[in-house]
């Protein structure tokens, strides 16, 4: 009895919630991921000349992308701007090219689910796979199945550790070390080459964290030996953690001049912490990586000095690469994309293009 009543109550509550919600009036943001001006440009197709992967070497038979079954496997749920823009870009580009049969799955951050997602895509007859891998390792079961059917695999934003051409066609993504170097260049400019800098590290044990840290430190050591990195603590790529660590940081190291946040969310958390501590915009220079709309707005407002973009719009480049492959061109192992940079000079004008 009580059980039924409780169930009815819960049901009613759910209806109530979905029925009359009314959120705060914020300026309606344009849909992320659409803008053509922001499509990715190839920075440098790398790999030794002649070692590219051709359709003849890979063994697939050419097909028409428009009528083919194309599978896209997303790794994390679309709960952050990067993932939202990434999935949207794949869908938009497929629609633009007239690819009728795009199947999209989402692994919700569970690696086992991603493996079975991709296996299902193969079972459904996918002729091309675009994968945003959650992990770099552990893909053998999928790779074997795909190789048996000669399905070309393009991985985006993270790599799969496997053999080029035999296992996967190409990797399209950013150079995270280079992103770190460019962030360092911005920090050096912000501080005039001298001062104390804190790093808000990403989640530990993640190649993005390691490479963004490595690039930043190398560049600072090489170009501005007077910049001292006095503090590095993880903010786990999350806004709340970025805020809490920054609160501790500015309290115990009041002489800090700059904060390098390895993603925008932590940078925005740091901004909230600085505001809470009564600092003024620009007192402490913040440089971050990602290029989300919130962070670019932060530059316009004066709280963030600069942002290095990590471009999530893989759609055009992924399908263009696939088309080249089908046309018989050789495809390199890595396609490194170019990331833009935002600073006070271009932030306001570029706001509409940030994701």
């Amino acid at each position, binding site marked *: 009895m009580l059980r039924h009543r409780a169930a009815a109550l819960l049901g009613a509550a759910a209806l109530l919630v979905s029925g009359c919600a009314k959120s*705060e009036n914020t300026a309606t943001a344009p849909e992320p991921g659409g803008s053509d001006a922001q499509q990715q440009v190839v920075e440098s197709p790398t790999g030794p000349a002649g070692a590219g992967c051709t359709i003849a070497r890979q063994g697939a038979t050419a097909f028409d992308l428009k009528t083919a079954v194309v599978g896209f496997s997303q790794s994390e749920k679309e*709960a952050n701007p990067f993932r939202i823009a990434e999935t949207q870009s794949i869908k938009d580009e497929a629609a633009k090219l007239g690819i009728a049969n795009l199947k999209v799955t989402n692994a919700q951050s569970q690696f086992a689910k991603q493996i079975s997602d991709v296996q299902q895509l193969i079972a459904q007859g996918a002729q091309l796979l675009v994968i945003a891998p959650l992990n770099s390792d552990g893909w053998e079961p999928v790779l074997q199945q795909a190789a048996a059917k000669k399905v070309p695999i393009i991985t985006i934003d993270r790599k799969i550790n496997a053999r080029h051409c035999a296992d996967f066609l190409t990797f399209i993504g950013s150079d995270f070390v280079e992103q770190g170097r460019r962030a360092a260049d911005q920090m050096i400019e912000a501080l005039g080459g001298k001062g104390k800098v804190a790093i808000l590290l990403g989640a530990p044990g993640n190649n993005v964290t390691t490479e963004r840290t490595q690039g930043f430190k190398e560049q600072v050591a090489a170009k501005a030996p007077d910049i001292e990195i006095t503090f590095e603590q993880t903010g786990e790529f999350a806004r709340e953690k970025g805020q809490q660590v920054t609160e501790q940081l500015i309290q115990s190291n009041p002489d800090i001049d700059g904060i390098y946040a390895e993603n925008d969310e932590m940078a925005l958390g740091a901004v909230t912490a600085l505001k809470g501590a009564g600092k003024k915009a620009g007192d402490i220079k913040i440089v971050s990586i990602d290029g989300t709309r919130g962070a670019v707005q932060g530059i316009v407002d004066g709280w963030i000095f600069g942002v290095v973009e990590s471009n999530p719009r893989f759609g055009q480049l992924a399908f263009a690469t696939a088309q080249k492959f089908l046309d018989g061109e050789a495809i390199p192992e890595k396609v490194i994309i170019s990331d833009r940079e935002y600073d006070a000079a271009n932030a306001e004008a570029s706001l509409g293009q940030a994701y």
Partner: protein
Amino acid sequence: MTETIDRALDRVRVVSWLQRYGVYAAVVVLFAFNAVFTPHFLAADNFRTQLVQVAPIVIVALGMALVIGTEGIDLSVGSVMALAASMVALYLGYGALPAIAMALLAGALVGAAGGVLVAVVGVQPIVATLALLVGVRGLANVFLPQLREFTNPTLVAIGSDSVAGVPIVVLVAVVLVAAVAFLVRRTTFGRQLVAVGGNRTASRLSGLPVRRILLTVYVLAGVLAAVAGVLATSRLQASDPTSLGLFMELSAITAVVVGGTPLTGGRVRVLGTVMGALLMQLLQATLIKHNLPQSWTQMAQAVIILAAVYAARERR
């Protein structure tokens, strides 16, 4: 002979003292260490930072202490915080107070669901609330799929303003600590709660409304978690149901256990719980301020938890 007895007595005395005051002593020691070795530690700003950061954990841990007092456990608290965050974002259009009311209502409903599963259906608390941990986080993400910032002045003020130098977030926590302490020590309900945790069969046989008590306790835990969710959200100036409250259940359980409340129920130590939360906060602050890697924090926390559990084991 007498010497061994003396030593054994000493040992018993030391252990029982540690059980009762160990967590206070640990806080004092850590505090003294920081006062000497951490620059800018003895500053009002610093105390404010630590208290503001620990407030949501304390509030969640209060609810957790009540549930643990009934020999239960509530793993859903972190997800309830996330749900509260999404409710706030969804209903902020009506103003801050209606949004907060909806968040608390959502917390009460999840608590009621857990309470019904435990008290009426008879599911083990760890299983029932594990289901809610997963399901409610999912629900929160359905309502609000991604982080949303807000500028509502009332809500922002709750997160960042102070009254007489004390942040509102901290004041709320202090009031709730006092209320829960009163509830446990001075009210019939408090006695009944402890009795149910001590011996459920005996409580039922002596005519206590066991089901109603359990249901109420889970509802209270849900509401307290929702309060924590609202406070954390107002501090962040953004609703973030994806990551808000992640692993909060573990922090809360740690605070309760380190504070000396036995997992076997029948006892609730409110001030001990507050101290347990403070100890963990201070520990983390110490390691961050000295720029030590996070893995050190985790190992130090493990040592403290083991010490607390060891002290509890000696009790019997």
